[in-house]
């Protein structure tokens, strides 16, 4: 679903300062009933991430970590069953999963007398049963489950969505008889940057020739699109020529401004496809 910049701004403004909870999400859906849930969730997640990026630093000072840890200890001392960490995160406007990470890190540091490795922390966040303290494990789990923008569960969902849309796209390409090389094949050949699909025989979409297709199971807002352009789309262009990006959850339509130069945006699989004639004959 394409949104105009104005429509998008309205949603973003509404999201202004919200907590990443299922309750906030529910409110958002009520406010914008015409938009698809996935689009709203995607925008919600992106807006929240922007907010976190802005405030990230202040939560990551040693003093802040100490404060949070002490508050956690005091909280569970009083009532271990209460959602201590989750409430703390909400109170200081920080993502619960990230709050859990800070406190876990601090906890391990004290216990092991050393700064724990990132891998260990990540592994414990993914599987809190590895946390040597049952109470903390439950607190951490509560945070990660309740966070709808960060955390291993959300990451996994995003990954799954991405994978599913790639599969969908692959199906559509097969259905249209467009032969392609997929990312894993490309990587095996040693390509340094790999779009999801490279078309073995280029086609024209809405009059523009494309050589590759990238599937993005998210909403294309300005900042994410800029980042993708920089890290991925231009790199693909630099190697393979013009291509198509599908933002399955829509994008701000003003961003589709590089068509002439060779980056096309769509929010669905295109219908206007022209193929090379002799390859049609082969069918």
């Amino acid at each position: 679903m394409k949104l105009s910049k104005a429509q998008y701004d309205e949603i973003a403004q509404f999201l202004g300062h919200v907590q990443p909870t299922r309750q906030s999400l529910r409110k958002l859906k009520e406010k914008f009933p015409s938009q698809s849930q996935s689009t709203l969730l995607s925008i919600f997640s992106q807006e929240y991430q922007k907010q976190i990026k802005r405030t990230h630093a202040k939560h990551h000072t040693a003093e802040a970590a100490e404060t949070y840890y002490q508050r956690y200890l005091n909280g569970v001392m009083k009532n271990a069953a209460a959602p201590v960490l989750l409430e703390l995160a909400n109170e200081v406007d920080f993502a619960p999963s990230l709050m859990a990470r800070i406190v876990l890190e601090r906890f391990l540091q004290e216990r092991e007398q050393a700064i724990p490795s990132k891998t260990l922390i990540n592994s414990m966040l993914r599987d809190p049963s590895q946390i040597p303290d049952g109470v903390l494990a439950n607190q951490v789990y509560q945070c990660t489950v309740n966070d709808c923008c960060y955390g291993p569960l959300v990451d996994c969902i995003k990954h799954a969505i991405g994978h599913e849309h790639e599969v969908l796209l692959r199906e559509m390409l097969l259905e249209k008889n467009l032969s392609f090389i997929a990312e894993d094949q490309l990587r095996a050949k040693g390509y340094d940057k790999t779009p999801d699909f490279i078309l073995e025989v280029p086609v024209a979409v809405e009059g523009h020739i494309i050589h590759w297709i990238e599937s993005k199971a998210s909403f294309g807002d300005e900042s994410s699109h800029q980042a993708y352009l920089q890290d991925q789309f231009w790199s693909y262009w630099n190697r393979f020529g013009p291509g198509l990006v599908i933002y399955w959850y829509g994008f701000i339509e003003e961003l589709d401004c590089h068509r002439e130069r060779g980056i096309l945006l769509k929010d669905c699989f295109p219908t206007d496809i022209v193929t090379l004639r002799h390859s049609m004959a082969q069918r």
Partner: protein
Amino acid sequence: MAAVLELLLREEVAVGAVLRWLRQGPGHRPAEVTGLVSLSLLQKDFVPFLLNFLREQTSQILTNGPSTPAKTPNSKAHGSQRTGSERRAGHRRSSQKASLGSFLTATPEALPARRGRRKGGSAVSTSGRQVPRDLGRSLAEEEDGKNDSPSWSGGRRKRSEVPLVSARSPPSQLNLNNLEEFPPMGAASGWTNKSKPSRRINPTPVSAERPLSKPKTCFTSTPVSQSPAARFSSGSNLEAFSTVQEGNLTSVISSSLQEEREMLKKERYGLSMMVIGLLILNIHLYYLIFSLPENLVPNIFLELFFVLQLLTSKGTSTAEEEEESDLEVNERKKGTLKFLAENERIASFSPTLHERLRQAYESSTAKVSLLLPCSVQSVSFQPETDNRSNFPSDRAFHIFKKQRDIFYELLREWEDNHEKTGWDFERVLGNKIRAMMAHLSATCNHSHFARLFQKQLIQMCKGPVGGGASWGDTPDQDVLNMLGPDNLSRLKRLQERFVVPQSIRGPCPPPSFPGCQQFFRDFILSAGSYQFNQHLVDSLCLKILELDGLTLVEHEHSDGEADMDEQDEKKRFTVVLLSLRLLAKFLGFLVFLPYRTVEQPTRDLQDSAVALRNQTLPVLDVLKLLRQSIRDHRSILTVPWIVEFLSLADHIAPFLDYYRKVFCLLLLMVLSEDKEMSFLNKLLILAVLGWLFQVESPVSFPSFSHQDSVPLVDQQLLYTCCPYLGELRKLLASFVAGSGAKNGGFIRKITPTAAESLAPKTSVTQRKLQVELEQAFFHNQPPSLRRTVEFVAERVGSNCVKHIKATLVAELVQRAEVMLQDKVKEEDANHDKLLEEVCAHLYEEGAQALIKGREFCKKKGPEAVRVLLPEETSAAVLNSAEDIAVELATEKACGWLSANIAALIKREVKATFNRMLKVPGLPLPSEDALELRRDCPPGCQHRAPFPSQIINEIKDVLCVAVGPRDEGEVIDHDWLECLLGRLSQTLRCRKFMCPTSEQQLAKCTVELASLLGESVMIIKSNPTYGLLKLLLSVWKEDFGAPVPVQLMFSRKNIASLTLANKGSLVCIHLLQDFLKELEMLSRVFTSEHRIEEPRTNPRELTRQSLGTVTAQS
């Protein structure tokens, strides 16, 4: 001079006679030109004089462009000439350099003697012949490389009899005794060193009134008697043009004059009849000059330009302006040739010329339209040259990945902004480029970048580019576009060009970097990196040699495919020629860059620089290439790019021994004639050489053995602007390029890699015989057969290697993977050693590659040959062709394989191994594949909910279960049951499932079960127990991945259970059955899949936890 003209105008001498007089030299005294005899010494100066006269006469009516430079008599003293040119130096770039003339002055002592001899003037004609002979000889002996002397000292000259163009067929050799073959211009050298810096000969004898008063009688009367036997044709070229006989020349003129007069009346032209008459003379003069082997004027294009100006001029009438701009549009749009071809005035002046032009135009359009725009504007990534294995380290590879992106980022920035006012390349991009260079240096990636840079240069600056408005907006592009088919974007671009005034470059512009070339030039300058430049030079040289090596092959007009071939080859030739010119220009730029100076160095500096630089070898042996090209009759390809290369020479370079030889050889090409060369080929060569010498040498060639003989003296370099000629030249270049195949096409010669023959070694004589037989076989077959066989051999051989890679090697790598997987776990082994061991196992089997390779070639070669050869090919020929193709392909493939198979296996295994090591957490690939290979149930419609959807929903349930809950928030039992049902569906359809999704689902459902167990205790309801049973079955039946059921009894969940439940022991007993089943399931999962962390037996854990619960209650 004036006297001759006057004779002509007074009709005392016929035009034809004058032309004959001009052509035949002073020794010739035909009866009809008796009036000219006394003037014979002036003969050679007549042409420049006439041209100047024309310019003078027409200067006022030429409103449609800049003025062309006037001719100066060739016998000017170079000393004063130089002063003249230096005076103008401020106005042009290349005048700052040393002139070709001055570098030649610096040479030999012996020359003055020769000059003296000529000055004697007694044997004018023989000394005239002497010029090329001397030239040829000196060049010939330079060529044999034994003469190291920097000078052309006559004393040291070896009397080598090797002619310059020794390898050429006899008719095209310089025939020193044939009067027809050498220019008569230098023959009469009675003209002494009259210093005359002025560009004009004093025109006084022709009075200003005369032209106005005399025209009618002058041009309308019948011509004087013409000798039908006039020996007009001197070569094949001329024959092509001999439709215009001298006998009817004047009648053509007079009849066309009638028409012209009518035209004039109608259109109220401001031209005087005199001017028209002279114009006609001029046209015919040039018309003849083109066809003359002697090429009286080196830069014919300046003259052509002048004629064109006359043709398109409209006098001063403002009423005509509208029409004029129409004309302009016409010209631009259709190309100069078409314009010429359609120009009715030309038609009325000379029907034959018109016909000729029309034909030329028509034959030119068809082929260029083949050049379709290409949509890709970046250089594509090619694994063979660009993947990790081409880099020494991961770091180098990743840094280059970034460099590539930065390069294009810079390019886009430039494209978007460079035309904006105030945008400065160095200021905006300079530091970024230098940072990039620093990175490249740090990782030794220069060669990769140089290749990318060079490829992008060709991509953007040469080839036809469609789409993007400002990409590839180069002069060559103009030509291609103009001749191309009607195409909206092109028309649009053309329109834009009318709106935006084109930069005016004049008929003889200095070398420049138009359009996108500017980016590349500025990039090189801003980078200022020695390493980069060196690598770029290497890369350019390689590419130039490759392109220059394309072979010109005679066309077989006998077979029907010739047309098709011809077109293809013309197209390819055009592309190759344009690429070469581009690359050579950049090579010249780089090679001479370190020596560039703003000011012309003083004589002393110059001498010492010459002495110094004479010691070093040139980067690219252009002299050798030029000689080869002349020998092989390929100068049409080579000369144009060498000219581009030399046009960027610094002040000193032309004085160096090496480059002096190159210049001399080129000059000789202007003077000599290759009768076999097609008209337009020759025209191109003359055009570019004319340009080069204009740019390089504003002065005469005083010491060039015979300075008087060379009429390119003191051409002015910088002319005021005129886009027409630039376009004319470009057009002709393209056009000529296109018709290069007229007397010989170009095909790529494919030389199969000469691998050591793997065939059983037969005796040398036998092999030799086989080779001879093979040659003999091809000898009487059409060349296309050989090309096909070589092509097939090349491709099949190459594909064979790829096939072996994809089959045998891939298989071996898979096996290696399994071996490595086991061993890497056994011990924390030395990875390198492990790799060596595993590979050693495989090398033996790698020997299979040769057998399989041979099989492949034997199967594929004949298939391909059969498809590619015409059907009527006889069986015997076909069989032989197949055999040869197979043999060549096998040789190529097996030669490569036997040398490289081990390295290939090792490389591939290593890459796989590295990939394996990089993903330690994830299940190993084979395991992964095993799971993914699980198929959907038969008839699956793939309609199940997406895994992400189910994870999301379970997450929501977990949220509520884990809390905190909203007021009255509960989990609906039925809904949960439904969710578990959908979970089962999702797990059964494998289409959208990926390992991480499934693992997450397993984990989440275990958590859910754990929480349900808790709630069983809280709610004490049997239905929840039912849900647990349902989950159990899903775990058992639907999951492909191991379910971490043991997590139910993790510390966390026990803690949670303990916290939540302070009583109700009873409920726990409800779970007993469940736990029993769970234990079994757990055993199944642990035996099927290795579980990293040994965990306590669930039953025990349960007991423990129950104990804890009991204790606490």
